[in-house]
């Protein structure tokens, strides 16, 4: 039993170590069915652990990887211009340059349009994020996270 607990604790630590930034996706407003050609709004949220930064989607070059959020092709939904909260700006001693970043939590709003020929029935709306983070001791590799949101399409 103890061994299992130790293993579980180790796994939890590993999971935390690999994910100082966790993402979630949800609909803005009630999750009612959408008609082909109609609009909906999706909210993507990053939860950021203390001591870590998520860099902005407008982070200038020369420093960490600029965060990217996009909707992959091959789905019956298309993204409009992503709205992001204004980032904090500060000279980062790690990069010795001004970086744009978020701490604690950041929410990004994606206006989405269902394709006119979107098939009826349950669909998966897919969003991908690419991000990278550093703290004072370590820099994490750029990582892509794929998020899925069930959306019911009804004509």
């Amino acid at each position: 039993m103890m061994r299992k607990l130790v293993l579980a604790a180790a796994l939890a630590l590993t999971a935390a170590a690999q994910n100082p930034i966790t993402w979630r996706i949800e609909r803005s407003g009630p999750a009612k069915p959408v008609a082909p050609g109609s609009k909906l709004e999706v909210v993507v949220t990053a939860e950021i652990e203390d001591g870590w930064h998520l860099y902005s989607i407008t982070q200038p070059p020369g420093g960490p990887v600029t965060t990217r959020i996009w909707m992959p092709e091959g789905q019956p939904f298309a993204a409009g211009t992503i709205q992001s909260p204004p980032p904090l700006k500060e000279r980062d001693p790690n990069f010795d340059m001004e970086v744009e970043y978020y701490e604690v939590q950041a929410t990004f709003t994606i206006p989405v349009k269902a394709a006119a020929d979107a098939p009826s029935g349950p669909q998966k709306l897919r969003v991908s994020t690419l991000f990278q983070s550093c703290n004072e001791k370590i820099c994490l590799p750029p990582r892509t996270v794929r998020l899925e949101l069930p959306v019911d399409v009804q004509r």
Partner: protein
Amino acid sequence: MPNLRVLYAAFLAMAPLYAQDAPKRGEVPADREAYTAARNVKDPEPRIEALEKVIADYPKASFIESARFEILATMIKEWPDKKDRILKQAETIIAASKLPVPPRINVATRLLDAGILLKEAEAITVKAIKVALTEKQYLEQQRKEYSEREQKLPSVGELVWRYNQDRATALSTLGRIRLKLGDDRKAEKALKAAYKLNPNLAPTALPLADLAEKKGKTKQAVDYLVTARLAGTATVAEAARKLEAAYRKSHNGSADGLEEMLDAEYRKRFPPPVHAETYQPTAARSDRVVLVEMFTGAGCPPCVSADLAFDAALERYSRKDLAVIMYHLHIPRPDPMTNEETQNREKFYAVNGVPTYLIDGVKNSGGGPREYTPTTWDKVRPMIEKQLETPAGAALDVEARMEGPLVRVKAAARDFKTDARELKIHVVLVEEHIRYSGENGIRFHSMVVRSLGGSKPGLGAEGFALDPARPAAVEHTFDLKQITADAKKHLDDYEVNGRHGKITFLNKLHEIDSSGLAVVAFVQDPKTQAILQAQYQKLGPARISQAR
């Protein structure tokens, strides 16, 4: 002067690498939710009101100072002409902080970056310098704080150095504000004072170089640009460009000797932070050659202390005691010593970030800036020395020789002491020294991995499998022309399709210096990742060595 580095050192010493589990949905603390909601308000006035409410509701939250700065940033962005309001918020920030200097410098930098209220920014910075502790007060304060934390007090020399670093930052900010105000004379005075305290700060050196050029003093400009070039940071490309132009101007249009001059200056300005004495084998010294595999990045600031700590290890131990190999990665910035095979190895070890180092297959991670090198060295040295007294799990013979552009390697392993059903022999081609000044400021990179024998696309697909029940031998040929071509292809492709978007490497380092090569071979259990034995073979005329 209060010192952020002390807080940083305390953080490094006390904080676990990842202090908490990632918050899950529905478990976000109320203060964080409120802060996020306030920041997401789009209109500036309600946004500021919401942030002020969060500050009032959660006065002890960790993000309070950030929230106050966010109000200031909103005001600067939305109403740059509302001078009184911005200054009132600046005063609020300064009054609320326990530290007299950092918030003032932070406020002044924001005004400088926005190009507004520069006279006021100047006054705030002057005040910060004025209210800073004297060196004597600072030393007394540090002694008290370290004693309260029951931590070992750094040497007086190191404390004075830290004191001067922060004072230099404040003076540098003042100089840059005055430069923007058009007062070159006073700007130069402040920048020179900063430079005297810290001659390795790029944000100080670059404007000083511009001022020198303006006066036609090209040689002086070169000196400042050498600083900016060697300091690394985000301005390294700008510094490289300006330095080459100024150097040519003062050397009849030629750049000959520039790199050699930078080598000498680097050695002078950045002496090794750790001087390791030669290892004297103990009575318990075993037959093992210890292997360090390190994942690093030339654009990775916290990799510096780990890179330099393993340089110290290379100085302390002979290659009969220790082999070190460095896998470069494009983390967090592009690194021209990266190749497809170093990235494959990253996947095999599921490397969570850089720096990560494995001592005989046991993973550790984390580093810090140059000043943290002694601490990193104190951490890794006992690990290496423990392994030096641990018997090897196999005998390994390696023969490597060069034939024109080919490196032919034979590795034979036997006498396995393991329960593993499968082992692998790895043969790795390393370049012993590569000169490259990237963003993290390290100029001389040791034991850079150029190729891993037996690499194929796929997770852990490098190396040669063997059956531990019987002796095994492998032969592998490294084709330098092919390795160079592959490295170039990788770098060319990364400039266009890499994760950093479209970039241009400062230098592409695909060319291999065949006079400085070595082969490292090792036997590994791919399941446990344990290293049974390693062997280092410098290349030159054909030679044979054994590790038993």
